[in-house]
């Protein structure tokens, strides 16, 4: 008779995996929301200097980046005497076009924002820590001439003891 069936052969019940994907989706949305895609691939080496008094910029959509640093590829355009490149959008600029390119860059960046946001547009100078100030000064002068006065010196957080 099967009445005295051997016990202990019970199978472990399967785990319900249905909510797993919900959890993963939650993670996914979290990262999708906080993430910002790097619009341009970097053409220059950029190690930000470290500072303690840094502030977060209020809105990522109101930031335009200017990269200054040593070029990664040897055949990039450089500023004289030829060790440092300036990258706007996705290309490095030629020294003879510098004035025009910076002006155009500021113009297009301002135009792509709403009228009320234009004054809040910040130009973030992402400058490698080994770059000499002469290049930064040139860019700052151009920004000033074109009335792009809100700038930011990108810096990493220094761990204080």
């Amino acid at each position, binding site marked *: 008779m099967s009445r005295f069936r051997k016990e202990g052969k019970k199978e472990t019940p399967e785990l319900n*995996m*249905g909510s*797993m*994907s919900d959890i*993963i*989706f939650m*993670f*996914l949305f979290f*990262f*999708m929301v*906080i*993430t*910002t*895609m*790097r619009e341009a691939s970097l053409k220059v080496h950029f190690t*930000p*200097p470290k*500072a*303690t*008094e*840094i*502030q*977060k*910029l209020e809105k*990522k959509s109101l*930031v335009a980046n200017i990269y200054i640093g040593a070029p990664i590829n040897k055949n990039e355009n450089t500023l004289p005497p030829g060790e440092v490149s300036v990258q706007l959008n996705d290309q490095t600029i030629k020294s003879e076009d510098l004035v025009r390119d910076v002006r155009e860059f500021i113009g297009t960046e301002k135009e792509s924002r709403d009228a009320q946001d234009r004054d809040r547009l*910040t130009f*973030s100078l992402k*400058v*490698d*820590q*080994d*770059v*000499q*100030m*002469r290049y*930064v*000064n040139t860019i*700052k002068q151009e*920004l*000033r*001439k074109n*009335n*792009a*006065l*809100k*700038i*930011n*010196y*990108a*810096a*990493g*957080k220094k761990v204080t003891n």
Partner: protein
Amino acid sequence: MSKRKTPGLNTGAMSDISFLLLTFFLLTSSINTEQGIPRKLPPPKADDAKEQKVDINKRNVLNVLVNFRDEISVNGDVILITDLKSRAKEFFANPANDPNLPEKVSKPIDGIGDFQVSKGVVSLTNDQGTSYNMYVQVQNELQRAVNELRDETALQYFGKKYEALDSAAQRAVTTAIPMSISEAPPIDYGSNGAQ
């Protein structure tokens, strides 16, 4: 015919797909890269001429020079970057009303009352060959001096640190301790300023 049950969908692969997406976003995301030291450039040209006419007394100027070897001089003394903060702080605060340190003007401020606002201006001049790192360090130390003074003022009048204040109180503290850095090209304050 009997009613057939709809077979359950196999959702096992769903989590695989979402995992894939998750890893993609994990790898491409960069959290909080937009941080740094915010600054305002002076408006171009026209206003410039006016600005230079303003009589700046010698005692109200802290001349910070950084040369191409990243050495710092403050009003003629060569100092280390670690001493810059205390120098700047002393300059802005002028606690003993030293006649060689900046004058103060009494100014009514909402929420604080009459406050002795310093007229001090830091004039920052850097060499073309100064490294960007040193430039940022100098800016950082000056900012640190001002932030510490703001914290002290905020604690004194509002009982909280500057960061914890609401925006109206923050504005009051900012008015009390202004951050004035001038980065105009080098000017000879000795002959121009004290007329």
